[in-house]
């Protein structure tokens, strides 16, 4: 009987123990977002830099990364002006914490941003912006537009890729199959590995897109603020214009595209045709090579133009430009409106700078999509009753 009793206790005890199932409770917003108090706590070991201060403090002209024994991109250096278009400065892994914070302005759902996040900080009523290069596919699903984030930058790097400042890691480009590969192979800014970024990025509160600041301006006004042909002396200011969130008013698509510095008219070529860069849609196919397709935006009352940069992978890539249709681009100039996007500065040939060959098309605006957050409110000039209705390229139209 004793044995039975003890064994019964054992069985009963084990059974009770086994029924204790510990399921984790659901996480609440408070559990997963960082509050301002928490930000203060997290950053207590260092300093939170304004974005421009951050660049001034840590991004040098030459970059501290490369040295005589490691190669770097050959064409990144303009000896005439002492300007480096590509640079990487590593940030100390240890020591006081180096923090930046900002609100995300980008969204990659439409496919026009790829593994790139831009954050915005408002300082004295003015935008400061910084690109963050992250190897995280569909990053906007996790780091969403309007989300404010805090980043501990220790151990990462800051640098310039084609003169665009960005938070990054040093990366060795070894694409020996690239065109002009000999000029491109070498160290340059690269994407922060996804796990490394998730480790140092904190989400502050829930996203709030209403807190994003847009600089609303006309093309003419824009060109009073940016330099078409910057010189070495003002290069620092030019670089800091990159990443601005703008609403470009009263602009229209001219029906042209940039072909290596010269403008050509788009035509009705099938966007799937190899090398079909001329088709009158936002971004005809490059057959997976992947460079952005530049469409020209003109401003009302000015002869100035700026590139509208689009990816062939964007969901709206095969939409006709406003005013264009299967017959061509004749009506493009008649549709005017607002293009919202990220102002971009991209200069990857030091020789162009040295020989003063800049065309002005180093500047661009990259919409985040159509419509809603990109190309929108476009209508027949001065007639809002005749709005532009996005229309897809249709092979049956041919």
């Amino acid at each position, binding site marked *: 009987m004793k044995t*039975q009793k003890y*064994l019964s206790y*054992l*069985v009963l005890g*084990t*059974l009770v123990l*086994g*029924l204790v*199932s510990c*399921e984790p*409770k*659901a*996480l609440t*917003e408070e559990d*997963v*977002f960082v509050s301002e108090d928490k930000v203060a706590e997290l950053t207590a070991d260092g300093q939170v830099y304004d974005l421009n201060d951050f660049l001034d403090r840590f991004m040098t002209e030459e970059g501290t*990364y490369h040295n005589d024994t490691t190669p770097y991109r050959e064409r990144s250096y303009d000896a005439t002006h002492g300007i480096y278009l590509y640079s990487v400065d*590593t940030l100390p*892994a240890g020591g006081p914490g180096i923090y930046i914070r900002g609100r995300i302005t980008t969204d990659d*759902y439409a496919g026009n941003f790829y593994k790139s996040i831009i954050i915005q900080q408002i300082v004295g009523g003015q935008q400061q912006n910084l690109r963050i290069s992250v*190897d*995280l*596919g*569909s990053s906007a*699903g*996790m780091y969403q537009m*309007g*989300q404010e984030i805090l980043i501990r930058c220790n*151990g*990462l790097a800051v640098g310039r890729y084609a003169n665009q400042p960005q938070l990054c*890691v*040093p*990366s*060795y*480009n*070894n*694409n*020996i*199959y690239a*065109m002009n590969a000999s000029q491109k*192979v070498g160290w340059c800014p*690269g994407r922060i590995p996804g*796990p*490394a970024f*998730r*480790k140092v990025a904190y*989400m502050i509160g829930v*996203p709030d897109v209403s807190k994003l600041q847009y600089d609303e301006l006309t093309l003419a006004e824009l060109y009073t603020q940016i330099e078409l042909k910057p010189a070495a002396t003002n290069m620092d200011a030019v670089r800091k214009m990159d990443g601005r969130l703008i609403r470009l008013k009263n602009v229209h698509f001219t029906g042209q595209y940039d072909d290596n510095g010269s403008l050509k008219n788009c035509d009705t070529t099938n*966007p*799937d045709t190899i090398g079909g860069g001329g088709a009158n849609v936002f971004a005809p196919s490059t*057959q*997976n*090579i992947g460079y952005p397709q530049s469409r020209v935006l003109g401003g009302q009352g000015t002869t100035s133009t700026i590139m509208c940069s689009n990816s062939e*992978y964007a*969901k709206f*890539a*095969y939409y006709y430009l406003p005013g264009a249709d299967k017959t061509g681009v004749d009506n493009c100039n008649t549709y005017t409106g607002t293009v919202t996007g990220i102002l971009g500065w991209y200069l990857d040939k030091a020789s162009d700078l040295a020989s003063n060959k800049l065309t002005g098309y180093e500047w661009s605006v990259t919409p985040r999509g159509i419509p809603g957050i990109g190309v929108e409110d476009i209508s027949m000039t001065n007639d809002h009753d005749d709005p532009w209705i996005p229309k*897809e*390229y*249709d092979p049956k139209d041919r």
Partner: protein
Amino acid sequence: MRNKLFSLMFVLAISLTAFAQTSLKGRVIDEATQTPVVGAKVTLANQNISTTTNAAGEFSLLYLDAIDEEVLIEADGYVAALELVNLQAEQANRMDDIALQQDIVTQAQDEILLNLTEEEMTDDEGRSQSQASSSSASTDVFNSNTSFAWSTARYRNRGYQSNVENYYIEGLNFSSQERGQFNYSAMGGLNDASRYKEVLNPMEATNFTFGGIGQSTNYLMGASRYAQGWKVGAAGTNRNYKARVNATYASGVLPSGWAFTAQLAYRFSPYIDNKGIIGEGIKYYSLGYFFTAEKIWDNKRLKLLTFGAPTERGQNAAVTQEVYDLTGSNNYNPYWGYQNGQVRNSRIVKSFDPTVIAAFEYNIDEQQKMKVAAGYHYSWYSNSALNFYNAPDPRPDYYRNLPSFMWDGQIANPNNETSAQQLFDAAGNHYPWGLFIGEDMKGNSLGSGFEDPMTPGSWIGPSVDQEQYMNLVNLWRNRDNKTTQIDWDNIYASNYANNQTNPNGAARYILERRHNDIQELNASFNYVNTKYDHLKMTLGVEGKYSQGIHYKTIDDLLGGNQWIDIDAFADRDIKELASNSGFTQADIENVRKNEIRDGYNNVTLANGRHFGYDYRINMGNMKAWFQNEWNFNEVDLYYALAFEYNSMQRTTTMYNGRAWYLTTIAQNQDALNGTDNYWKYLGKKALDDLTNGRNNAPGNTLVGMEHSFLDPAFKLGLTYKINGRNRLKLNALAETRAPYARDAYISQRVHDRVVENIYTHDNAKNLTDFYAASEKVAAADLTYEFNYPVIRGRITGFFTQSWNGTELNGYYDDEARTFVNQAMTGIDKRYMGVEAAAAVKLGTYFTLTGVASVGDYRYTSDAIAVTSAENGMPMTQDQSTKALVFETKDKVLLKGLKLSTGPQVNASLKLSFFHPKMWFADITVSYHDWNYLSVAPSRRMQGLYTGTRMDGTAVNGWFGDENANAIQTTDGQLLRVNVDADGNATYENAVMDANGVPVLKYPYNIMTMQENIAATNPLNRFLIDASVGKLLYLPNRQSLSINLSVTNLTNNTHFKTGGYQQARLPRAVRQGELDYQNSIITANAWKYPSKYYYAWGANFFLTVTYKF
């Protein structure tokens, strides 16, 4: 009065008969409980006659020779006993009660084995580690000594997949009609309930089914079999579950003729927060129940039984060697993460298989008996998984999250042989994985890279600098929670953020539940006739109707507002899907929908509503067979013939947008090419209904095409009894086998289309076409069996050839940039080898048993693969016409490759100790070798190495050299792979190895060489298991047993049990060039490296059982 007279006459007749002949009677009882042992096998060794004990534990053998005889008594769960008797001529000899001692070691091992087989590991490619062959037959030295000892190594009998084995319960077929496998979780933990079974070796004469090339097992669950009394027990282990309690009660046969048995078994493990342990990140709850009632009256028995085991358990996955190395543990599990500081696994299996069976046995007379059985079984089986929409991949071991990815694209000039040697050893093997964690073979730090000496200016090393690289490495090495486990915090944060920015949109992440239920209704009839001298005739009819039920529900929205039921791949690719098909995105808006009929609300909540897909596979099966066995003094002979009818039909209540899109594309293609394929994606009836306005509402069932098959099978066997102790057995079998539903449908979640040869079969006008879809099998084995008091065993040689097999694979294709399905047909396989076993008694206490199996299991032909994208993306483009190609056909170079069905060389030596005072102990040393990795057909497509597929289309990205030439062979000739008249590949200009596989330079060898996953150090190919137990007899027929079993005693952590090549193959476009076709596959052939399963390290199982 008349009845009494008849009874008296009957008794007299029997008595007279008994007196007129030599017979033997006896009773077998449990030594501890003194209760009858039912179903014990009693064999007279010298006369080769056997029988089994009845409900009272009694046996009776008639018509015997009057000689000195050895009586061997064997029963599941007991130590075999041998008794000597002197049979007196023409007398009814009677033995004293034979008391069998419980074999607590084997009982414990059976329990461990039962658990092992249900704990499959699955991963994101839907693969699972193959189950070990698990049925043991106590009467066969080979099987009884391999089923447990070799289960750790995932040994499979004769190299067969589990779907050729036949599993029955009380004569009813319980192997899945969809996949052919038996679901062990149906009786999880019910070790007592499943103790009694008949196990028959491949191709031997059977009495409950026709059998086949695999083992046939019939679980016997009648209540009268179980020893009377209570049995309660507890167990502790460090395996996936940590503890178990169970209780069994058996009434024995009551005076009323009824017997009842019931068992409850509860196994569990809460989440344990301890990285690196066996069962890391796994919780486990399972409550098994079993109840059986049996009524015995006259010459009839009625058995009623039910069992089930509601189970909830976490899963783990195979990962790449890099991950094992970085985490420093073979137990790493990527499926879990911390939520609110507690462990949470994303992959939780929920299963419950309530089963009811009724069986009626009727002994018509002394020479005729029959059995009818019917059963119903509903299997709820589902597993959870994270799904995501426009958000980063949540898997911690996603290839881009690993340090190795930092090397991607960094290897210069892949086809420069000399340069390549920098990274490969002389045998063409990639350097060990140490390369990815900081240093090269010379111990140099690779973090900052080095210049390729053969290509000045080219840099070899990770793409990021040393500091960043090591930062990532250390995150892994230190098991950083956010890096190496699921980041539940970020997942919830993404959803909460999305609620703000996109409140009506799809949650970024959900935990969905994928249901694969099945319900089965089966019946069987079995009739045995021994009316004629020396002849036993058996007739069987089996019928089964199964319905596979497949759908998804949402388990947890993870903080999100709702899920929008659209297909993420189609949504992402909609621009290409439109332009490729000559439509606009607006035209094909339906393609992203999982239900396109008006009225479907695609807003999905965690309320149990089905979403994503909701279809059923209806399967019918009817089998009729008969068998004639002749038994003579020197020769036994049998033959059996069977006909099996199978049918399958898919129905769906969701009209999938990709099915609609593919139908539309096919209509266009049909118009262009004069083909007739468009109806295949939905079926003629479904299309007709829709065209005529029927079934136009969501939820209406669309009925697909029905496919039916009729397959014959024939087997025969001959036993030559050299004498009472030595015999030769020869068995042979020929059959055709219909494809399983799992291999028949190209993409059953989306559409109705089946592999092409089934359409050939459906429209057959001749016999060749009629069997175009069936696998043909021919097999034979030859056995020498010996049985002496001191030594017994057998040696068997076997040979099996199969032709025209079908397999289906699905994977993400980097060329098509989407998920593709690949149907392979024409697969030939060969299994041949030798298995041997001998058990030698060493004195009173010890037995030494040696078993070995050496096999050669391989593909004997190449296969034809048809590959198509699940969402309708084109597979490639015709170079000359630029026409898009939606389905490619190519040869898969499989010939000569080994099958990945466990180790092909196995041997073990077991020393058993048994002391009459009921001490048990044994130690087994096993050696396993020739264990081959499962190959990915996608890596062995002919076109990869020639640039052109079998169908003439060009491969976009292939292993040509820099100038787009075909791969050169070692003697400098260009390799060409052609197809001969029989459809086999021929390798023009290639230098062949012994297996007929071309010997080629890198990268062919790297891509196609099949890895033997046996440990590099031969010492690590050994596994040692041991167990010790004690049985204590207590007063009043009570007993207490304790057993400790330790598996992998030496904690061998180098023992891989399986694995597979990832099907995904890296491609890289040559940047800076405009030619779409002239791209190359990136040199980084190991970008998606193989994944492996490892044996658990040292693990124990301690059981305490009390009987009263």
